[in-house]
C-alpha cells in the first residue's frame, strides 16, 4: 500500500548536518525499495478557484503560509505502522514541526 507523507513549512533554516542526515535517510529508503518519489514544494504557488462558471487564478504568497505543505514523500509499505515508523524517523531528523500521512488509493 502507498502512503503520501506531507510536511508543513517551518521557520527554521536547515543546516548542513540536517542536509547530510536527510541525504542518508533518503538513500536508505531508496535502497530498501520503499521510497517511490519525494520532493520539496515552492512556497506560495498559484491558487485556482472555481465558483459557479467562474474560475479565479490567484498568485501566492498566501496569508496562511504556516499551513502550507513544503515537502512530500510517496512510500510503498506493507502496513500503516511501517509508514508511521518511517515518519517517526523523518521527524527525528528534521526536528519540531508536523507531518501528515495519508493512504493513497488508485490509480
Amino acid at each position: 500500500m502507498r502512503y503520501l507523507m506531507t510536511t508543513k513549512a517551518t521557520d527554521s533554516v536547515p543546516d548542513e548536518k540536517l542536509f547530510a542526515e536527510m541525504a542518508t535517510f533518503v538513500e536508505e529508503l531508496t535502497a530498501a525499495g520503499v521510497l517511490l518519489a519525494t520532493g520539496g514544494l515552492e512556497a506560495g504557488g498559484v491558487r485556482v478557484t472555481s465558483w459557479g462558471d467562474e474560475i479565479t487564478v490567484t498568485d501566492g504568497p498566501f496569508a496562511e503560509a504556516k499551513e502550507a505543505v513544503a515537502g512530500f514523500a510517496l512510500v510503498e509499505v506493507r502496513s500503516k505502522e511501517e509508514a508511521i515508523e518511517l515518519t517517526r524517523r523523518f521527524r527525528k531528523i528534521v526536528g519540531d514541526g508536523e507531518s501528515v500521512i495519508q493512504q493513497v488509493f488508485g490509480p
Partner: protein
Amino acid sequence: MEGVRRTIDAVWRMESAKIVATLTGMLGDVGLAEELAQDALVSALEQWPESGVPDNPGAWLTAVAKRRAVDHIRRSERLERKHEQIAYELGQRPEDADRDDVLRLMFLSCHPVLPTEARVALTLRLLGGLTAAEIARAFLVGEQVIVQRIAGAKRTLAEERVPFELPDGAELAERLSSVLGVIYLIFNEGYSATSGDDLMRPELCLEALRLGRLLAELAPREAEVHGLVALMELQASRSAARTGPSGEPVQLHEQNRGRWDQLLVRRGFTAMLRAREAGGPPGPYLLQAVIAVCHAQARTAADTDWPRIASLYEALSRLLPTPVVRLNHAVALGMAYGPEAGLAVADALTADAALRDYHLLPSVRGDLLLRLGRREEARREFRRAASLTRNVAERAFLSHRADEITAPDAPALTLGQAARDFLDRAGLDAATVRSYGQTLRRLRLSLGDELPAASLTADQVALVFRTAWGEAAAKTWNRHRSALRSFCAWASLDDLAAGLDRRAESRTRTESIDPALLDELWDLPGISLRERTLWRLLHESAARVTAVLSLNVEDLDLDDRRARAGGTWVTWRSGTAALLPRLVAGRARGPLFLADRRPGPARRPAAADLCPETGRGRLSYERAEYLFKRATKPLDPAGDGYTLRRLKPRD
C-alpha cells in the same frame, strides 16, 4: 497494547533482514542467527508494552540481537579465536559491511543446494521478514509445510557448510541467476496466481519488487538485476488494469491504458536505463523488460510495434527456449503478421509434452482460430483451456469466451459425453473404470470435451499418445492403447489406434541402483529416520515393497532380525538393526511405517492400518515412492529419481 504490538511487527519487518544478516556474518550460521534475532524480538514484545517504544526501535533490536550473539560466541568453546572474531565484528568492519551482509544473505537463501520452493520460503522469511503463517497463506499451503520447509533449508545449509560470502568470478553468474529466478518466481506467483480464487496476490508482487529494488542497490553493476527490476515495475504498472470489475482477467490489448500506473512505468524506464549503463550483452530478463517497454510506450493497443516485439521474442527464445516463450512468440507473430503466422508456431507446440496441460496454449490457439473464422474449433479450444486452468477467475473468463461463440445447430455426440457413457456402462469393474478413465481423461484434456467423437482422427490420437506416453514404459503404452481400441469398438468409431504400434514389453527385471550410489544414498542429508529405515530394510531384505510396508511392530523379532509378512520372512542386517529400535520408539503394536499425520475423518483406513497409540495411518506406497524419488533425484544421472523397487540388490 495492540498498537505497540503492531509497531513491533512493522519495525521487525523493516529491520529483520539487516539484523539476521549481521548476526549470520558474526556467527556463520543462519539458523542460529535467526534464532537469536527472534530472541531480540521476544525481548521487545516483553519490554516495549511496559517501557514504551524506544526512540530508535530498529537500533534497539539490532543492539539486543548483537549482544545475544556476542554472549553466544563467548560461551562457545574456542574462546580465543572467537574473541578475535568479536573484535573484528565490533571494531574494524568497514562501513558498508552491513549492506554486503544483506547481499550475502540473499545469495545464501537462494543457494542452488536448496530445492526451489525452499529458496522461495527462506527468502521471504529472512529477507522479507514474513512469518511462516504469512508465507503459507500466500502460497495456499499449511503453515506446518512452510515451517518444515524453512527448517529443512537451514539444516541443508548447515550440513552442506554453505559459506556466508559473496560469490565471484564464474560462480557469480550462476548464483545471481538463482537469486533473480527466486525473486521473479515470487513476483509471478503474485502476478498470475496459479491457483485459488484471486487472479493476483498483490502482497507477493510488492515483496518481490522490494527485493528486486534492494538487490539493484546492492549489486548496481549487474545489468540483469536492473533488467528484472524494470520487467517487474512495468508488469506491476498494469496490475490495476488487468482485472475487470468482477475480477476477470483483461488482456493486454484490451486494457485501459489510463489505468496503468505511470509512476511504476517511469520507474521501469529508469531501471531500463540503468541496465543499459551497466552494459554487456542482453540477458533474458533484460530482453523481457525491453518487450515490456515496447508495450508501455504504445499509447494505444493499435500503436503497438508488434514486428519489433516478435523479433525480440525470437531473440529471447534463443536464450530461453522454453515452450512458454515460444508461445508468446506465436502471439506476437499473430499480431504482427496475421493469425496464420501465429497459428503455425502455436500448432507446432501442441506436440510439446511440457505444454500438455498449460491452459494458455489452447487459449492462444482459440484466439487465432477465431480470427481465422474457424469458430467451432476456437470454441472447443476455449472450453479446453477453461478445463485446464486451476484459477477460478480465469476459468470463468475462458468459459465465457467459449459461450460467446454460438454452438453448431445439431449437437453431435461429443468426446466428453461419449467417454462418460462408455465408462458408465454396467458391468465394468472399478479397476477397469479407473484404468480406462485415465486414458480417456488424457484424450479429453488434450482434444477437448466438445470435439464431436465422430470427427476424431487417428493422427490426432497418435499425437496425444506420443506427447503423453511416448516416453512411458511399453506396458503403460499398451494399456492405454488397448483402452482406446476398446472405446473405439464400443463407440463404433474407426480404429483410431491404427497409427499406434503395440510395443514389445521387455521381461528384463528392474535394474538395481548402482552400489556405488548406495553409499551416497545412505549419507543423504535431511532424510527422516522413517525413510532411512525403510530404504535400508528394502535393500537388506530384498523383500517386496508392499510386504515391507505391511509390517507391524508386533511382527518384528529384533533379536533375530526378522519379521513375518504375508506368509514369508523378511530378514535384515546390521544397517537396519541399528535404526529399527529408534523407529519403533517404544510402540508395541500397529504399522511399523506410519504416515506423517493422522488421517482425516473421511479417509479413515481399516483398523489394521492405524497406529493404536498415535492414531496415524500406515505409510502408503505412493507417498513412500514419491519421497524416495524426490530424494534420489540428485543421484540419478537421468535426473528422474529412482523407484523403491530398485533398492533390491542384484542377485
